């Protein structure tokens, strides 16, 4: 069966008729054309497809698109704004927290949800929030460090009353 759905992705409204069995990850990738969200497994273990839905990190491969009707979704493509890269993106780069980069989008989204709910996470909080995101390059030490540093940057900018944005935006590929 097909149903019509309305989903907000990165602030933009999408309206489509989809098959009931279409997974949200396939909607995001194949219908909305946002291929930054990846698929790394078939059993919901890897977390490469992690998005933020209604404020929480979830795996878009374990949600039907029709279940997301009316939801507000954030993907990696929405992380940077017109004013620049998100501190997480800057920090991942500065800390050599990206190797092959396939897991990166999912990890960034898990980290985004974490920092919103817990602006001062300990390294243990970060590790725990990332258990559902596998990095097969096993670059975890750098990833955890990058998230910790980003949380410091965000807090510091908030103290200064500034929007925490990276200045490397003009070089953004």
């Amino acid at each position, binding site marked *: 069966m097909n149903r019509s759905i309305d989903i907000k992705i990165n602030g933009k409204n999408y309206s489509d008729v989809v098959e009931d069995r279409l997974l949200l990850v396939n909607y995001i990738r194949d219908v909305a054309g946002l291929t930054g969200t990846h698929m790394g497994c078939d059993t919901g273990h890897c977390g490469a497809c992690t998005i933020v839905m209604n404020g929480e990190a979830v795996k878009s491969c374990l949600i039907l698109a029709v279940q997301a009707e009316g939801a507000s979704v954030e993907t990696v493509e929405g992380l940077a704004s017109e004013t620049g890269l998100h501190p997480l*993106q800057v920090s991942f*780069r500065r800390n050599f927290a*990206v*190797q092959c980069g396939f897991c990166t989008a999912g990890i960034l989204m898990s980290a985004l949800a974490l920092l919103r709910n817990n602006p001062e996470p300990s390294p243990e909080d970060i590790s725990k929030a990332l258990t559902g995101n596998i990095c*097969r390059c096993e670059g*975890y030490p750098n990833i955890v460090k990058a998230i910790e540093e980003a949380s410091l940057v965000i807090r510091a900018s908030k103290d200064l009353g500034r929007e925490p944005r990276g200045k490397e935006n003009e070089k*953004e590929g």
Partner: protein
Amino acid sequence: MTIQSSQEKRTEQTYVGVAYPRLEDLRLTTGKAKFLDDLSVPPGTHYAVILRSPYAHAKIKRIDAEDAIKVPGVRAVLTAVELLSVMDPLPLALRSPIRYYPIATDRARYAGEPVAVVIARTRAIAEDAASKVNVDYEPLEVVADIEKALAQGAPNVHEAVGSNTVWKKTFSYGDVGNAFEQAVKVVSVDVRVNGYTVPPMETFGVVAEYDRGSDVLTEWCNFIGPFTMAYVVAKALRLSQDRFRVIVPGDIGGSFGTKLAVYPYMALIGACSIFTGVPVKWIETRMEHFVGSTRAATRLSHLEMALSADGEFLGLKARITDDIGAYPRSPEPGHLLKSVSNFTGPYKIANLEISGEYVTTNTLPTSPIRAFGRPHLCIPLEKLVDKCAKITGTDPLELRKRNFIQPRDFPYTTASGGVYDSGDYGAAIEKLKQIFDLDGARADILEKRREGRLVGLGFAVGIEPSVSNMAYLDLAIPEEERQKATFMPHSGGQHSATLKIEPDGHIVARLDSCPQGQGHETVAAQLVASVLGVNPEDVRVLTGVDTFNVSWSISSGTYASRFGSLGISAVYSAALDMRKKLTEAASKLLGVSADDIVMENGVLFSKSRRDLKISSKRLVGTVYWNPGSDALKGGDHTLSVTRTFNVETLGPATLDNKVNASATYGFIGTAAAVEVDRDTGSVSILKYASVHDSGGSVNPGIVEQLCVGAANQAASHALHQELIHDDRGQPLNITFGDYYVRTAEDFFTPIFGSAAKKSPFTPLGTKGVSEGDNMTGPAALLIAIQDALYEYNADIDTVPFTAERIWSRFLSKNNLGESASSRSDVA
């Protein structure tokens, strides 16, 4: 950005040795990178779903696809019957009557072997239809492990071979008999390394488009090379090389060697496109990856060391049996042969004998996994050396130092023909002691032991070869055959880089590498920027290979740590050539000698007369728009250079089976401290340190991140990772929930140190790096765990050494012990 855009004065090597943030990350952190599954596909692309054998060994009696083909949207259901009309077997490196196709013909030889391919308009339709295909099998007796394969009367995986042994050979160097006669002591160890894999995040994928108009098959795939396999695929598909185009995207989601094994699927999906005439896309699922992609060999090894009275290693004997799965596919028997020329590692051992036997079983075929065959070698060799130290009552690091190749010996030729470039292994060990704080670590161990805790220390060392000299595979060919005039020896392992300056001054570097997370773009940009005096952002680096547009060779690709030695050298040499071309053109335009020209901040000056100058932008413009000018007339000033870098020592194999398999040889020393949970057998890593000799690094940030991953992967392998199957050959742990994969809750931060000795064979002295911890890590952990279990006199002989193995072999011999102790939960 153009060649003239630099704001500040740049002199050569400004960026070399700098942890420059990676350029790749700008697209990888913003979701803009394009991995294989993200690429646009040709119009009319159909999707392939592969049906696989549920039996590890069975005759295929009948395939009934009648219901499947009726499903609307299905284009074809293809089996060997159809596909063999457009395909020959994939050539093997081993001489053998075995015919290896990427799809089962009359018999399936491992559970997961492709049996049929359903091709439909969408993936969902292909899956719906595939559920309707029925296959009749006649199950046959299964040979699932080495012991059974070698047993008397065992059924044969390949009847045409008449045995499960597909290759057997003894290599002998020096006078091993004499060495063992002279020995005061002979020490031996046995180790079994179970089959394992290091699965990448991104699975395999191929998009194949056969174009009838040009008669060209184009394949987009996340294949990492070596491109000798592209040649193999072309042969299998009956295509001349000019009709087979392989395009590898610049972003690959990890490989750790596995993506060499994309090649059988390049043949399979290519054949599907040729047969159906439509473009065909296949993306592997994760479970398919576990059952159908590749794995490292299962190895049984028995090593013996002949020791002199003062602990000198007089001779080494090894008996190796490798289970390489259902087909001895290329590049097997590489698990053993790749290491023959450096089998003795960093030790000076003049007498060496290696007996190798290759066995087929009804399991997934093998291919290189990060540090091809070297964990298999390093673990028993270092366990042996550690045992030698114990038996002779020598400090394990001192015994190693005593037997090391010494700095004065370089370049050093091993007994089996390896040519080591440089090193100071003793100095590296001193550095290791320092960064590990060996004295402190030893005191800590004693302290913890007094508390009754099971803690121990372990060390392992190794050489870290860079590059695969294809010559090593010739060792698989009988000497008689290699003597024939018709025999074509193999050798070399080269890397190419093309550097262009576009008419508007933009710089483009094109590599023949297929990086999977190694930051080649950044490293190449740093090199070019340093030589041409621009910023790394000013250099557009294109990685990934397009065989129609890149200067490639059969060894192109990214594997065997080849970029650190050859890749960097090719890019650097091309940049120097480009600078020379610019200087020459400037010398003509300025009317001064080329020696007199310097390049600074985008301007070329005469050293003797500073007022004689030309901006590089004008220079480039003149070369493009006015090459007929009096000054430039007659010369070749095109601003495009291609440099192919090779190392002279990479010659063919000799008839006495000596070969130099690699271009440079780094060194790694690893120290680990572990604790074993007395109740559960679980192992915690208390401390882990490695010293690397990479010859120096262009980007230490990248080198370190790669090594951080390698060290954690090493622990994953050593403590957990193995592909488990039952005695019917059914793979059991085929998801990320069943096969161990580390998470952020369970990593450790290694300590690293550098002990670089520049290679005389590369222009910047760099060597390959980042596979070392995958070799020494498991070895050091094994030795540390044996040390922690000293009260049990533990001999760990199986890798991985899981908690249950440690408990059942050693700890269970005791009582529950300190069960209700202070540690509240179980890691």
